[in-house]
Structure formats: C-alpha cells, structure tokens
C-alpha cells in the first residue's frame, strides 16, 4: 500500500483502491457469496405452526361466543366489556396469523437434496458430454494448431489464423443457427443423405445436434490457445530431437506436448467450461424436444419454478464442477494460474 501511494500519490491511490475494490468486492465476491449463502437456506413455515393454528381456531371460536354474548348482553356496561374483549381477541388473532404465515429462514442442505434421480442424471450427462466435447476438440485441433504453427511459413500462418477469427468472432448463436439449419429434418444434410437412400434422421430431436453444434461452437477456443503456445516452440527443439533419432510420435510425446501444456490447459478449461455452462446451444438446438442440459434446469429453477434457493444450489453445483476441472487440469499439466490467464 505504501508502495502504491509512493508511486501514484494519495488521491490517485485512493481512486485505484476504490475502483478495484468495487469490482473485486462488489461485482465479483459479494454476488458469489450471496449466491452461496442463498443456496444453504430456505423459507419454511415456522416451527409449531400446527399448534398456532389450533390456537387461532380457538380464538375464532371465542369471538363467535363473544358475538352471541354481545347480542344477549343486558346492559351497555356489559356490552362495552364484551366489545373490549372482542378487540383484544381480534388483535391476538391478527398477530398469531401473521406469525403463522411468515416463513422463517431455515439453514438447510435440502436445496441440494432436491436434485433427484432425474436431475442428477442430467447433471452427470452434461458433465460427461462436456468432457467428450473437450476431448474431441483437443484431438481435432492439436494437429491443426501444430501444422499452422510449425509447418506453415510465418506470414501464411498469420493469414490462416486471421481467417479463423471470422468464425470465432461470429456470435455463438449464429454459429449454432447454421448447424440448426444443416441438421434440420428437412435440411441439406438430410437432403444429401436422402440421395443415397438414408434417413431422414431427426438429428435435432435425438440430442446429436446439441453435441455436434457444441463441438463446432467451442472448437476454436481450443485452436487459438494451442496455436499460441506452439508458435513459441523453438523449431530447433524439434530438429534437435530429430537429429538425435526421435520419430514423429516421440517428438510430440517428449518435446512438443510438454511445451504445449499451458495451451492445452487453457484450451481444455475454456472448452469444458463453455460446454458445461452452455445455455444457448442446447436451448436452440433441441427446441425442447430432447433431454435438457443442466443449465436449462438452472434457468427453470429461477424463472419458471421461481425457487431461487434451489436455483442457487444448482448453479453452485455447476460452478464447483467447473472449478474442480480447472484444478484437475492445473495439477495434471503442472501449470499455474499465471500460465493460464493470458
């Protein structure tokens, strides 16, 4: 802090700390903490609600009795006494009723337990499918990234990467839309298959569509980190290995892949996170005809079932899985956060 003040002076330091503070505490930390907090409680009818309603019933009976008494009352004094009691009982009823209907905030794990067999299956399916998307993206992209980074002349490589920016920069929804057209029941793919006597196949309705579109939508998040890291590999390293007798596989296993670790980590983390957290792709591709993705369950908890506590619990489960994946990748590939975020 003193270092900060010495570098920027007191007013500027104060502004810096204020802005960074609002961002880190107000935008990043607080909402997450509130979400976590929210996932651990629920509003319930207060304890002893049953006894309360018995008492309220009893008080209503008393009111009825008092009304009869009032009608039968002999003089004004007795009537006034009864009136006073009626007011008192009425007040007590109001208070008790309020107590009975005001839910109490109760700490609980039940929001998580709500995830029944069906939802748990969707959760697992979402994660497994996202892992598969990640694996496919890596297998497809590694040769591409290597070929562009190490086999093309530098200027051509730059042009190729620039060309790839076009599909990368086009909105995710539109990329998905293109595949929705292609895989449609009456789309060009089925038309082409029809020519050779196959199909038509209901790709969209079977859930295949989600998978295909997801690979397409997120594959470039694998290409770019891999390319960036492979571009920094000294070609002499490859030649040295070759000179010492290494074959193509050995070169990749011992020299290229170890060097590419940070890029692999970034690519896998991004692809996995985007797939597992994807709302657009399943939402658009299935149009509700196939099993939903976990994110859709989360959305439904919030905006259809409007149970925000359960929604928070679901969202947090997803966050935990994604964070866990990041840790596993960092461990497995022996990279640090600094290597990842660039």
């Amino acid at each position, binding site marked *: 802090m003193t270092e900060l003040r010495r570098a920027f002076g007191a007013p500027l330091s104060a502004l810096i700390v*204020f802005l960074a503070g609002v*961002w880190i505490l107000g935008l990043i930390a607080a909402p997450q903490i509130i979400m976590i907090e929210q996932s651990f409680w629920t509003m319930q009818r207060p304890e002893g609600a049953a006894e309360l309603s018995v008492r309220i019933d009893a008080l209503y009976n008393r009111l009825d009795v008092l009304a009869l008494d009032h009608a039968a009352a002999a003089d004004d004094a007795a009537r006034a006494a009864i009136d006073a009691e009626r007011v008192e009982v009425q007040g007590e009823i109001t208070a008790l009723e309020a107590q009975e209907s005001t839910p109490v905030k109760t700490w609980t794990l039940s929001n998580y337990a709500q995830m029944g067999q069906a939802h748990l299956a969707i959760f697992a399916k979402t994660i497994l499918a996202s892992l598969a998307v990640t694996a496919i993206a890596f297998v497809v992209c590694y040769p591409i990234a290597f070929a562009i980074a190490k086999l093309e002349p530098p200027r051509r490589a730059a042009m190729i990467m620039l060309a790839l920016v076009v599909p990368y920069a086009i909105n995710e929804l539109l990329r998905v839309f293109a595949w929705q*057209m292609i895989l449609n029941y009456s789309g060009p793919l089925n038309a082409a298959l029809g020519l050779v006597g196959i199909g038509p196949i209901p790709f969209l309705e079977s859930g295949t569509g989600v998978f295909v579109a997801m690979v397409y939508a997120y594959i470039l998040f694998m290409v770019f980190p891999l390319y960036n890291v492979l571009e920094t590999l000294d070609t002499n390293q490859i030649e040295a290995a070759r000179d010492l007798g290494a074959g193509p596989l050995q070169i990749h296993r011992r020299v290229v892949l170890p060097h590419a670790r940070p890029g692999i980590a970034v690519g896998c983390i991004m692809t996995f996170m985007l797939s597992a957290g994807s709302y657009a792709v399943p939402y658009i591709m299935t149009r509700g005809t196939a099993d939903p993705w976990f*994110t859709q369950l*989360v959305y439904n908890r919030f905006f259809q079932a409007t149970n925000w506590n359960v929604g928070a619990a679901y969202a947090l489960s997803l966050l935990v899985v994604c964070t866990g994946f990041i840790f596993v990748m960092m461990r497995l590939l022996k990279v640090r*956060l600094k290597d990842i975020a660039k």
Partner: protein
Amino acid sequence: MSGRGSGLILRVYMALFFVYMFLPLGIMVVAGFNAYSPPSVTVWQGFSLQWFGELWADERMRSGLRNSLIIAGSVIALALPMGLAGALLLGRLGARAAGLLYTLMVSPLLTPGIILGISTVIFWRNFDVAGGLFTAILAQTTFVASYAMLMFMARLQRQDATLEEAARDLGATPLQAFRRITLPFLRPTIATAAVIAFLQSFENYNTTMFAIGGQHTLVTEIGSRMRFGLSPVVNVIGILFIIATITCAVVWAILKERERGAANGASA
C-alpha cells in the same frame, strides 16, 4: 518436417477443417438471400433481399440493438477503469497479496457465464432491484473488467519503469507523471480493450440471458427467435455479422501491414 506423405495427409486434414469451419457459415449466408422461408438451401425460390427489409422493419430487433449499445457503452465505461485500477494495484503489491488478488480478478473468466448472471441477479434482489439492463451491465462488467485487467497488465509489464521515475525526478507530481507518461503509454491498449469490451458485451448471451430479466438485447432476441423456429431474418443478421467481422479483420490486416511497412522503411 515429417515425410512427404504425412505432410500431404496433414494438408488434406487442414483443408477439411477449413471446410468444416466455413461451410456452415456459407450455407447460412446463401439461405439469407433465398426468398423461401424457413431458411433453406435445398429449396430455392430465387434471389431476394426481402429478409433484409423485414429485419429493418422489426421493432423488437431495433430496440434490442439499442439496449445492446446502451449496455456495451456502460460496460466499457465501467470495466476499463476497473480493470486498469486492478492492473495498477497488482503491480504495486507484495507477491502473496498480488497472487491472491490476481486469482480473484481472473476468476470471472473461469466461471461459467450463467453463474455470473445468476449471482448478480440474486445479489441485487436483496436490494429490491429486479433483473434488467442495470444488472446486465454489472454482470457483464464483472468479467469484461478481467479481460481489461489482463491487457493492461501485459502492457504495464512492458513499460520502462525508469520513465516515470525520470518524470518524477524532473519535478512531476505522481498524478502528473501518471497523466503524462503512463496514460499515453497505455493509450493503444485502452483502444484495444474498448474494442474487446464492446465485442464481449455486444455478443454476450449466457450472462445477459440470466441477468436481464424481462428486457432483451439484440442477441437474446435472436436467441428467443431461434427457439421458435427458423427465420431468414436471423440469416440476415448472420450475414451482417460476417460482413462486420471480415471488415474488421481486413482493416486490422492492412493496419498491421502498414505498420510493418513503416518499420521496414525506417530501418532501410
């Protein structure tokens, strides 16, 4: 590198990859000019620009675009100062504190977008603020500021620390030194960060969808249209996006080329 044969295989493979990347976009473009609806390339009813006209007349798309621009402008105004403050702070902290802070500041990039949207809405509901443009702006700022921070940090690491010291030595106050030395040095990054922030905000779907409540942006509107069947109007938007992207890429390439030319001219 490897033998001639495997080189050929790799080239064919790369060509296939490019077909895979670009063919779907091509199909989308072609269908946008087809008079037939739903969008199709298999049934051709003649070249038509009618969907462009329909897009222009679409009130919800227009209001969505307006909301998108409002959000993007606000996100730039918030995220850039915050990201810069974060980057400046990082450079002046001890290793341990900086490590913790860094983790916090990049965490939004490693968090699924929907979670950022959800947590913002949950948070603000406690203050009786419902989902809308305001929450969408805050939710997007959370992660856009992370991008800005990383970009500013990379630039600051390349700054020659002695320049600021020289200014101070010549009698500049810290504020003057910052304004005259550091800020001009950061100017190109400010421009790039603004462009990136705009794109991130404008194109965002996941976070916005969860944070925006009953309002809509251009992109969330596109999303809900797709849900209810295909419309060539969406193809037209795709065509416009592609044109914009290619234009940006070409401009960027030309600028880069000119820069290289200038550098060569200077050295020759």
